[in-house]
């Protein structure tokens, strides 16, 4: 796992955040503070705005109100895994690694962490949904970003992969990384902050 570069005094500080979708307020007054090494688990019913919150944090949607102070480099794994079907998984991950400015070794380490190494030569199009999810998580881990934004990272994962995910998150936090994850279940991470929408 690449060591994130962390500014010791930095915080992810979200205050009074609100978002609208299609003219309807999805959530309002959401606030939390996350320190390096911290993890936030976002919970709530379907349609409560969990994914919307994550997309606002990622800068993919504008906030209707409130402030986000995010001094960290950020990686995002959404519902859509952003893998083209044709190229091999290794080539796909290498492309994003080039954009992230990280070397092939970072990708290789992340692939080991998510047990994807044997699959790197296969076209991304033939992977199962759980394998594609792991590929998206590998891209996040390889990016070396400080803040991981994960939208239901455990969706479609088998028991063994759940363990790999928990281990990867623990290693990321141990090296000073932060994580915000949307989940319906238990990610198996140590004492997360919880936010209920």
């Amino acid at each position, binding site marked *: 796992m690449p060591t994130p570069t962390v500014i010791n005094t930095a915080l992810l500080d979200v205050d009074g955040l609100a978002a609208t979708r299609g003219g309807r307020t999805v959530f309002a007054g959401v606030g939390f503070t996350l320190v390096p090494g911290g993890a936030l688990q976002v919970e709530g019913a379907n349609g409560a705005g969990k994914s919307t919150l994550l*997309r606002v944090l990622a*800068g*993919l949607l504008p906030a209707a109100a409130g402030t986000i102070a995010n001094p960290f480099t950020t990686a995002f794994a959404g519902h*859509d895994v*952003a893998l083209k079907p044709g190229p091999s998984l290794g080539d796909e991950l290498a492309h*994003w690694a080039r954009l992230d400015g990280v070397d092939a070794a970072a990708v290789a380490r992340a692939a080991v962490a998510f047990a994807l190494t044997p699959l790197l030569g296969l076209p991304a199009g033939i992977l199962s949904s759980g394998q594609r999810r792991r590929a998206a998580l590998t891209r996040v881990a390889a990016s070396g970003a400080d803040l991981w934004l994960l939208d239901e990272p455990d969706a479609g994962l088998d028991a063994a992969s759940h363990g790999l995910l928990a281990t990867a998150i623990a290693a990321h936090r141990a090296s000073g990384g932060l994580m915000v994850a949307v989940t319906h279940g238990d990610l198996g991470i140590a004492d997360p902050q919880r936010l209920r929408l």
Partner: protein
Amino acid sequence: MIFLTLIRRDLTLALRRPGALALPVVFFVLVAALFPFAVGPDARLLARIAPGVVWVAALLASLLPIETLVAPDVADGSLDQIVVRGIALETWVAARLVAHWLGFAVPLLIALPVAAVLLGLPALGPLALALLLGTPALAALALLAASLTATLRGGGALAGLIVVPLALPVLIFGVAEGGGVAADGALKLLAASSLVLVALTPFAAGAALRAVD
């Protein structure tokens, strides 16, 4: 550096699907081949309308890739990954424009002699030059229309309605050049149209994609 990485990525993906690259070109040649059947084997008439036919065929061919130009990247989350990395959408659009032009115009120019033979075109040079200068405009318009309709179901048909009127100046200047009429001035205006569209498209398409949520 990011710009070149994005172009390389698009070209790699394009070369993996040679069928998609060949489709507009085959369509281009087929449209050109229709005309001798439609207007009869009058060689003088064919030679006279040939530049116009080639340009209309190129314009129609430029509409074919629109649906696969931007929409898949919006749908599969690739564009989200670009935005999260802080890469400007304008940069992404500009890179895609370069890659799309290479994948569209180069095969088209290679197929031009075939269309020329079918139509009995007397001189290939002026028309090839005009297409070289005009295809960036066609590629830019296709990309702009693709960005505007990226989230619409069946947006390709609507995109055609957007492109065709905007392509009229390119068509007019291109045909004037290819026909050898008032050639010099038309060539400069054609180049100017291409420059304007190529310069505007990254910003217009970037704004369109930013409005997607």
